[in-house]
């Protein structure tokens, strides 16, 4: 029988509960958002005892469905003040699922600030253990020490120094498959600080004696799973590494950072704190540059962990991750280096050094920071004159202040909006207080609608409308068109469904093109749950409605569904356009 594990940090107890019937169709984001809606007072202090952290694997996580090992982490965000779901790969989601747990709930708060704790979850048991030895420790060291102490190779998630200091830009880290990098981040929205507010550093999950969750209708589940595997392998974006002796799958060869040059060519790559739409140094920090570095280092150091086509969790067949090596030693520098991270810490800061961008990423991973928030914060600091655009070494030193006793570190930890307010910079790209990622909404307006109206704050993953817009197809005018409400709503709903399944959002690339792939994905969910009435879009809309309702009760109004003024007044070169979507159009997204 599936269960929920509750860890109460007020009375220091743990309790296994039967998974409620009313939640039986829910997983991942649907479950975290529903439980936050049901259990967290919308107006509560995000870093206080009434907020909760809900940790949930997706519906088919833990099964042999391809690329389905995603973990959702939910709560009230200290960065946006609204509901939040952030998700990641890593080891923990599948291990929680194999232990028969649908969710782990962290609630309450110790009165004493003297102690730190880890949570150790095993088959049928959960313990709150003293963790003062881990406090203030860099996360590369921490994950190594945890595996020394627990030889079963557990999944580890939690917060780093940034979260322990209750910084709004603190993400939730996760160890990778090899346990050599804590870079599997549910990064956005400051949920790392919520974990820190409960005096928890790490949640350690050992799935010894666990079992794969079983499908109710195994035949339908298997049929769907096989169709999805075939589609993922066939598609040019998610497909195999090589075909006919030539590079094939874009994600396996170049990772998500294949986009660096592509979005640059589209003229939609925000550069130097969102002042320009192209960056001359894009190629140097691109996925192609990483691919070449990996090949070069592997030739020199055959035992180097350097890799592209790297899986973010066991069973992922998309393998968009990578392991970036130090060129001079072959040792791991960081894993992974993704597009939005390379953009935030590179392009947006005018930094074109692959080494320094990777090092900044490593600092984020070590301290427990969201890379998108950190990059935007550095760019705002550059705009404030605290350091110069393009100065990689200075940016590394600046970011490291987060881990020091310097008050500047606390300001950096506030995120881009907070630092901007401290230094009088109003040119801050955010929505609901959360920094925007690597696609400028002036030339790509649908993504601007998603940024503005999505319940999660500025976040591309909640409705990735890049596809139809850059393509300029399907009977609509081009991406400059301003009637984007329907487009954004459809993508937001579908995304909310995929985020609930446990499947990686990147299966979307294949299921958008290959009809049998999308059919297979839905069949696998219907088969697993034993319910053929599941409608993906309707399911996703239900999730969005709950999230919007939570935000409304937290005090959000239409005014919060807007982008900063400069997007409407400052044309972005080279297309020299502004964000012209009207407030009325933005309000149409969820008006019914």
């Amino acid at each position: 029988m599936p269960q929920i594990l509750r860890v109460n940090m007020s009375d220091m107890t743990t309790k296994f509960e039967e998974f409620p019937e009313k939640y039986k169709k829910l997983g991942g984001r649907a479950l975290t958002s529903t439980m936050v809606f049901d259990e967290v007072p919308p107006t509560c202090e995000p870093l206080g005892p009434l907020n909760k952290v809900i940790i949930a694997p997706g519906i088919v996580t833990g099964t042999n469905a391809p690329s389905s090992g995603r973990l959702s982490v939910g709560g009230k965000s200290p960065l946006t003040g609204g509901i939040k779901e952030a998700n990641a790969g890593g080891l923990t989601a599948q291990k929680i699922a194999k232990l028969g747990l649908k969710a782990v709930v962290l609630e309450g708060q110790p009165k004493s600030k003297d102690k730190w704790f880890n949570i150790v979850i095993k088959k049928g048991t959960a313990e709150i253990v003293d963790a003062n030895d881990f406090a203030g420790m860099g996360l590369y060291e921490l994950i190594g020490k945890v595996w020394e102490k627990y030889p079963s190779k557990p999944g580890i998630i939690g917060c780093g120094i940034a979260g322990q200091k209750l910084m709004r830009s603190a993400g939730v880290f996760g160890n990778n498959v090899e346990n050599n990098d804590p870079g599997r981040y549910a990064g956005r929205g400051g949920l790392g600080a919520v974990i820190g507010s409960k005096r928890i550093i790490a949640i350690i999950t050992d799935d010894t004696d666990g079992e794969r969750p079983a499908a109710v209708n195994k035949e339908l589940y298997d049929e769907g799973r096989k169709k999805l595997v075939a589609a993922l392998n066939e598609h040019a974006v998610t497909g195999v590494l090589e075909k006919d002796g030539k590079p094939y799958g874009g994600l396996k060869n170049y990772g998500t950072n294949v986009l660096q040059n592509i979005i640059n060519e589209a003229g939609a790559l925000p550069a130097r704190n969102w002042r320009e739409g192209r960056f001359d140094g894009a190629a140097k920090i691109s996925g192609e540059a990483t691919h070449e570095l990996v090949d070069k280092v592997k030739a020199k150091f055959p035992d180097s962990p350097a890799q592209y086509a790297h899986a973010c969790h066991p069973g992922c067949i998309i393998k968009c991750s990578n392991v970036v090596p130090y060129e001079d030693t072959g040792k791991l520098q960081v894993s992974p280096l993704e597009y939005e991270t390379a953009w935030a810490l590179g392009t947006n800061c005018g930094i074109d050094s692959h080494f320094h961008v990777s090092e900044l990423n490593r600092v984020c991973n070590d301290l427990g920071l969201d890379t998108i928030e950190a990059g935007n914060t550095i760019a705002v600091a550059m705009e404030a004159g605290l350091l110069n655009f393009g100065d990689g070494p200075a940016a590394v030193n600046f970011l490291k202040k987060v881990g020091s006793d310097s008050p500047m570190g606390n300001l950096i930890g506030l995120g881009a909006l907070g630092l901007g307010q401290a230094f009088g910079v109003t040119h801050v790209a955010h929505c609901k207080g959360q920094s925007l990622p690597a696609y400028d909404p002036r030339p790509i307006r649908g993504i601007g609608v998603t940024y503005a109206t999505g319940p999660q704050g500025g976040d591309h993953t909640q409705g990735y409308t890049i596809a139809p817009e850059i393509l300029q197809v399907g009977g609509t005018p081009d991406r400059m068109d301003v009637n984007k409400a329907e487009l954004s709503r459809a993508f937001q709903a579908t995304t909310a469904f995929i985020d609930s399944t446990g499947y990686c959002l990147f299966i979307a690339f294949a299921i958008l093109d290959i009809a049998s792939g999308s059919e297979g994905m839905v069949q696998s969910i219907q088969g697993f749950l034993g319910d053929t009435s599941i409608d993906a879009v309707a399911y996703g809309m239900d999730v969005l409605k709950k999230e919007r309702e939570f935000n409304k009760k937290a005090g959000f109004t239409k005014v919060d569904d807007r982008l900063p003024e400069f997007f409407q007044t400052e044309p972005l070169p080279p297309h020299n356009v502004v964000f012209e979507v009207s407030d009325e159009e933005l309000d149409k997204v969820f008006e019914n």
Partner: protein
Amino acid sequence: MIDVHIYGLIKKKFDPNASLGDNMIIKLNHHDGLLLQDVFKELDLSQEDCGDCFVNGKVIKRDENPEIKDNSRVAIFSEGMYLLCGGQHLKGHGFITRSAPKDYDYFHLSSGE
């Protein structure tokens, strides 16, 4: 003149020592009526060797052959290098397994459709 930005492994065709992490810009003379296919021909490139192609910030579909104006910026990516999105079939990359959907229903997941 027009600038042609080359990305990915096809760089090696023009310079075997070229780095994938550096810009490669080939300057071509412009003439009235210059078409995109003329650019491919002049560079001795086949579209099948290429992924996405942009002209002045706009994705060009495989079946399009637009006129290239003077001072244009053309970008050609190697095979396997695409804008990360569904919709490759709509760009003519040969992954056609469904007809062009409505603009907002790309996933075709709603049972009501």
